[in-house]
């Protein structure tokens, strides 16, 4: 059963340029939203830097996730079934764009 996530709000902290922040900046400033960058379940955080993700034109992480954790949103990948994640890290390792990270 997928965890119910907060609806996508599409906001960033005002005035923060989503260049390429360090992970601690992402966590501190909640730059990735909609269940990304937040603890989605115990001991799991999937972070998406939305400005880096090339979305459906790439689709590598979504295609190769063995547990179907990810889905392709309008412009970028989204976590759809966090409970299923086994932290295999394939999404992070195969992503060419520094867009998705698993902790």
């Amino acid at each position, binding site marked *: 059963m997928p965890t119910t996530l907060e609806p996508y709000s599409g906001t960033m902290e005002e005035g923060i340029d989503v260049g390429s922040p360090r992970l601690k900046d992402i966590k501190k400033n909640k730059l990735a939203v909609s269940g990304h960058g937040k603890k989605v379940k115990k001991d799991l955080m999937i972070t998406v830097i939305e400005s*880096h993700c090339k979305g459906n034109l790439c689709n590598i992480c979504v295609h190769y996730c063995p547990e179907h954790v990810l889905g392709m949103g309008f412009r970028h990948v989204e976590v759809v079934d966090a409970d299923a994640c086994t932290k295999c890290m394939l999404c992070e390792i195969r992503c060419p*764009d520094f867009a998705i990270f698993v902790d």
Partner: protein
Amino acid sequence: MAIDYFEYLRKDKMPHIWCPGCGHGTIMKSILRSIDKLGWNKDDIVVVSGIGCSGRTPGYLDFNTLHTTHGRALAFASGIKMFNPKLKVIVVSGDGDAMAIGGNHFIHACRRNIDIKLIVFNNNIYGMTGGQASPTTFIGSRGTTAPYGVIEHPFDVCELAAGSGATFVARALDLDAVAMDRVIKKALSHKGFSVVDAWSQCTTYFGRQNKWGDASDMMDRYKSMTYNVRLADKMSDEEKEGKFPVGILSENERPEYCEEYEKLIERVRPKDA
């Protein structure tokens, strides 16, 4: 995160300019993970590139970076390494850059066994200039300069490297990025000239012209064209026919060029100097 990638990136230059689905970013991440595991000091690392899509790589990396003329990265890198052997010199070059215009420098660097690590970002096409066929484009495949299919036989980067004397030769797919990490880490720590033929999918040109599909289709197709060299003994010749071995293909020791030259200096330098 496997590692803190941003430690090694020039953050103000990101995101990079590579196309959606291009594998170059995956290879670059693999290089960064390997450097992180080896614990190298950033000030000692020099990344040299030629021209092309792979040529943009050094701009994103927070090391000493040099973006040279087409095909000549190994020549520039040889000068850097020779004069200051303490620097760790990594050359990133495309298949056209290293195998066509840079072919001569490729074979001579292999022959010298100079302690430089060459990662060939092999996407079987000239990407930056719009999709022309390259010396590694598969026979029969299309490029903008081979609209009826390539009739030339392509280079096998690894065979050429081994034949020219490189002491570490390996091939890796960006699909199996974990295996690529292992291969690149070994290449970086090897003393001598190391060549990694890293396959990367060019979705925009090679993939589109040859109708190979999107990034994951291309990565799967590359996988089907290869076999793991460690399983080679258990495979029949028919199974291996027409396919490329992946993994560490050869690894041996030979005197390294810069060290040999240092020994020469010791031998001839006047003792009172």
